[in-house]
């Protein structure tokens, strides 16, 4: 822990020195305090030499503080700068060395048990980070700055943790990634690299979780991210040599804060004048304050400050829209700090003063002494405007060699800033806005911008893809402040509307949730047992009222319990969009991924189970369903293909659809293939659904089958099996030339199913309602016998095999005559079947439980057990296995789907 503690302290110190005001004893005191903390932390960690060094520095600082002489304090501050640079470098070195020889102290010294626990926690954390990364990266690609920040934070956290656990490979790679993220790059490139990182991390964490050694040291990735950075070393030397004017914006933003901080402080140290108390009342001029040798530096400064001020506007708008987080405020602070430093060096007094006062104000915001309310932001906007003007003056003077003009407004601005810094909040100019009103409308209503200008900007916005605010700033040169105020008004309207809608989230162990849900399930059953007991009727009314209340709360609990396991499909869908993009790129097709209803919630474990089938179905759609762009153009379709993922609730079930607008399934090719493999008889007439079902048969999807038929079938048996494992069903719909849709019908949750209690002889069983099509009492003319053995039922023109449940399960006392019993038509992989039962007793929601241990593990007739409302255990029938007996000659389920039905159909017609 101390290890990362040191790191944090170093960070804090750097920030502290960055903002240290050398005339102020207080800021030095803060440094001093941090240093002593650092000293003890380092000592704890075993870096005794470093700790000693730090301690000495503290003493020196203390001495400097005691002396009242400003010069001495400045001297001490200078020393602090140098010392810190050295320390940072030394610490980085020591840390690296320690990481490289893996674990001299961090692992060996600590308790192995505690470490195993930490490691397990770490694995869990990284896994969740990995799964969170996908949507975050996607959001970042779309320009969400919050997502970017979030990614950085996540990467930073696990980097810290891996350092703590002594996993140098992870730490180095993540460190490289972190530095990479600090550098500017195109969003696309970034996202691609981040995705690589995500995959790499996922592999490593699995290796870590299973205790295997890493089989990749991340070297390639580190290369991708630009190798290991040794910024602190650079900082140490740069601080002493760099010319102040060379501090450019990329350096400030890109390198760790220590570098810019050091440089700037040195700059300030070189020539920081005390803030002028009085400024010139009117615009006046002063002689050009720089000599010829410095002219280049001034030009450089102008260019930079222009960039810097631009970034200030950007930051301010972001703060306006997304709130003032520490990162952004620090960003603002840094800009003014740099500006101040360089301006001081170049003797641009007005710029220096203005930057200085603004910086002081921002420092108060940063430390939390001042809230970054509208007043503050407006002031900063005004400051940037004035600073721009000042820069223009400088430019003019530089180009024309005339004296430098001074602006009168600087003084008032400084006054205002000081007032705000002191806590006097200025009146804020306001825009009126209604909820849902567009930014343009707000601006227009306020009269700040003409209607035409907004129209114009909206038009060009379509091409540039920028936000309207940016566009207005760029094209119509509307003051950023005005836009910020409009945005504020817009946000205010939303905030007012959303008041109290903030959500808080806690992470809970999944096992606990499962236990809770299970317990609730029990409660529901016991409650219904109590409520349905006949004795209840004899209870006095008030007790029965209580009981009613009890029942109501129980149902509420049940609903809550069900919700707890629900997660939206969004993350899973987003993973799929990524896959579609990857696959499309690889196969040279242009594919657009469309998502619908990704907010649909599903049982968490179901979402996991759904991942594999989705992968297979999408791979199929992209690889085989969608044609090449040329082919598409030839058939008159748009070059860009679409793969749609949609999810929706439908009558207590969840429907997930994967559709493409490709070539569709070639029905004849599938039939030919099936006939050639002897799966169906020649000339058999199959319904479309039956033909498509053939695709899901194992082995049907061999390579040559893929090329011969339109290419459907890779991994389709896996799809079917997985979907059935979560008690779902899959149906296929395809129009040649138009595309294919796979429709997955899934239950809401895995833990609870709708069941139909049936009676068969002396026994009662539960049939999942999902697999029941209908139930009916057959008449004698519906029954047939084929070759004296197989019994068939003709239901609405469809011949179904008759399944005698009592014979299959060996139950006594069942009614042998179908016309006196009941037929339940069930749907299974192999097709439909008519199950002969004595009676359908009731419908009941049941909590699925595994059948106790000791029951023949090889038996397949039961899908599980459940507690019935009378407290007895009921067995849930496995429809697949039971129907499979009739459909596939005793072999249950999938292998048995050689669909004898069409053949049988033929023989029936011969009989008739």
């Amino acid at each position, binding site marked *: 822990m101390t290890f990362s503690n040191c790191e944090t302290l170093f960070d804090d110190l750097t920030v502290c020195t960055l903002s240290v005001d050398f005339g102020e004893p207080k800021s030095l005191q803060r440094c001093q305090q941090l240093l002593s903390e650092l000293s003890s932390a380092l000592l704890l960690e075993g870096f005794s030499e470093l700790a000693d060094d730090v301690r000495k520095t503290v003493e020196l600082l203390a001495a400097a503080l005691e002396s009242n002489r400003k010069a001495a304090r400045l001297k001490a501050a200078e020393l602090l700068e140098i010392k810190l640079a050295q320390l940072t470098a030394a610490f980085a070195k020591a840390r690296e060395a320690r990481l490289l020889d893996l674990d001299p102290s961090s692992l060996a010294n600590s308790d192995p048990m505690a470490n195993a626990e930490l490691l397990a926690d770490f694995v869990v954390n990284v896994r969740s980070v990995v799964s969170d990364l996908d949507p975050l990266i996607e959001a970042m690609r779309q320009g969400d700055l919050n997502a970017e920040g979030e990614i950085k934070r996540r990467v930073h956290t696990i980097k810290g943790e891996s350092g703590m656990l002594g996993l140098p490979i992870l730490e180095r790679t993540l460190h490289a990634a972190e530095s990479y993220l600090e550098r500017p790059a195109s969003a696309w490139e970034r996202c691609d690299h981040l995705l690589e990182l995500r995959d790499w991390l996922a592999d490593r964490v699995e290796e870590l979780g299973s205790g295997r050694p890493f089989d990749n040291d991340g070297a390639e990735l580190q290369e991708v991210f630009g190798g290991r950075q040794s910024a602190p070393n650079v900082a140490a030397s740069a601080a002493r040599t760099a010319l102040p004017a060379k501090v450019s914006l990329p350096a400030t933003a890109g390198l760790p804060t220590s570098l810019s901080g050091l440089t700037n402080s040195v700059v300030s140290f070189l020539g920081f004048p005390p803030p002028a108390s009085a400024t010139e009342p009117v615009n006046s001029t002063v002689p050009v304050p720089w000599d010829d040798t410095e002219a280049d530096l001034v030009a450089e400064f102008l260019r930079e400050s222009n960039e810097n001020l631009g970034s200030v506007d950007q930051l301010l708008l972001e703060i306006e829209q997304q709130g003032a987080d520490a990162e952004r405020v620090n960003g603002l602070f840094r800009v003014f700090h740099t500006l101040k430093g360089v301006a001081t060096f170049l003797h641009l007094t007005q710029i220096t003063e203005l930057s200085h006062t603004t910086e002081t104000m921002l420092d108060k915001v940063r430390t939390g002494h001042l809230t970054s309310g509208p007043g503050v932001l407006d002031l900063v906007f005004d400051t940037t405007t004035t600073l721009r003007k000042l820069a223009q003056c400088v430019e003019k003077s530089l180009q024309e060699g005339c004296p430098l003009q001074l602006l009168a407004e600087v003084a008032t601005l400084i006054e205002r800033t000081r007032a705000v810094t002191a806590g006097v909040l200025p009146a804020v100019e306001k825009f009126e806005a209604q909820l849902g009103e567009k930014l343009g409308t707000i601006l227009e209503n306020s009269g700040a911008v003409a209607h035409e200008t907004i129209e114009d900007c909206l038009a060009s916005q379509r091409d540039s893809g920028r936000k309207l605010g940016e566009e207005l700033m760029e094209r119509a040169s509307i003051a950023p402040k005005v836009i910020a105020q409009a945005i504020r008004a817009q946000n205010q309207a939303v905030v007012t509307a959303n008041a109290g809608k903030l959500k808080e989230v806690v992470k809970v162990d999944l096992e606990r949730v499962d236990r809770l849900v299970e317990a609730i399930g029990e409660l529901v059953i016991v409650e219904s047992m109590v409520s349905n007991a006949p004795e209840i009727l004899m209870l006095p009314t008030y007790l029965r009222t209580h009981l009613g209340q009890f029942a109501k709360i129980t149902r509420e609990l049940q609903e809550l319990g069900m919700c707890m396991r629900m997660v939206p499909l969004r993350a899973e869908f987003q993973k799929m969009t990524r896959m579609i993009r990857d696959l499309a790129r690889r196969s040279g097709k242009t594919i657009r991924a469309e998502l619908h209803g990704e907010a649909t919630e599903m049982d968490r474990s179901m979402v996991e189970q759904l991942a594999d089938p989705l992968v297979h179905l999408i791979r199929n759609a992209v690889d085989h369903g969608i044609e090449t762009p040329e082919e598409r153009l030839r058939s008159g379709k748009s070059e860009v293909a679409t793969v749609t993922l949609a999810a929706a609730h439908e009558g207590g079930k969840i429907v997930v659809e994967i559709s493409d607008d490709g070539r569709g399934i070639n029905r004849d090719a599938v039939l030919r293939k099936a006939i050639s493999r002897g799966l169906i008889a020649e000339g058999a007439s199959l319904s479309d659904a039956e033909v498509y079902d053939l695709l899901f048969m194992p082995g049907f999807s061999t390579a040559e089958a893929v090329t011969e038929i339109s290419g459907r079938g890779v991994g389709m048996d896996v799809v079917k099996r997985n979907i059935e494992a979560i008690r779902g069903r899959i149906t296929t719909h395809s129009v040649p030339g138009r595309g294919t849709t796979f429709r997955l019908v899934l239950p809401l949750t895995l833990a609870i199913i709708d069941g139909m209690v049936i009676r068969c002889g002396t026994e009662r069983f539960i049939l999942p309602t999902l697999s029941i099509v209908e139930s009916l009492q057959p008449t004698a003319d519906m029954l047939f016998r084929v070759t004296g053995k197989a019994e068939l039922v003709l239901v609405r023109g469809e011949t179904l095999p008759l399944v005698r449940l009592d014979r299959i399960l*060996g139950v006594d006392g069942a009614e042998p005559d179908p016309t006196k019993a009941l037929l339940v038509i069930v749907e299974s992989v192999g097709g439909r079947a008519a199950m002969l039962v004595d009676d359908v007793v009731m419908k009941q929601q049941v909590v699925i439980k595994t059948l106790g*241990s000791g029951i023949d593990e090889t038996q397949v007739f039961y899908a599980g*057990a459940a507690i019935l409302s009378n407290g007895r255990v009921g067995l849930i029938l496995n429809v697949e296995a039971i129907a499979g007996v009739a459909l596939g000659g005793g072999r249950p389920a999938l292998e048995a789907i050689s669909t004898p039905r069409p053949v049988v159909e033929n023989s029936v017609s011969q009989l008739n």
Partner: protein
Amino acid sequence: MATVGSEERQESLNGVEEAAHRLAGKYMTFKLANEEYGLEILRVREIIGLMDITRVPKTRDYVRGVINLRGKVVTVVDLRVKFAMERTESTDQTVIIVVQWSAGNTSTTMGILVDEVLEVMNIGPEQIEPPPDLRASKGDTDFILGIGKAEKRVICLLDIAKVLSTEEVSYVSALSKEGTTRSA
């Protein structure tokens, strides 16, 4: 007959004594067709009267069915059938002993149907003999911890986890007869 005093026995005498010490402790004894058996007390979770058992068709014959034990589905094994003894009607003495054991990370709970629960008794190391060699009668004695002797009673101490997870243990009755004859 399993003659005591074979060379093997001599060599492993120390081991036998050690085992006897290890096995000494409290056992719950129950009756099954006039024979006495013992279960390590720590394996016994509870004893419940005979309740409604849901039959599970098409499973092993010694599985009597499943019960709802406070919301948990627990399999009940008819120990008579498991030991290939004659099946009899249940009496008011018939009970289900719920046993629980863990192997690795998984804990298993099962019920065993026995004729009558007798008592919880302390069996000292001197009362425990190693399981008899039943190879002559084609028996495997893996699931027998040892033979406990107390006041002319012979108690076959069962490793219930092995009994319930082994497929074929029907020769146990052969063993118990053996034990009885030996003690007689």
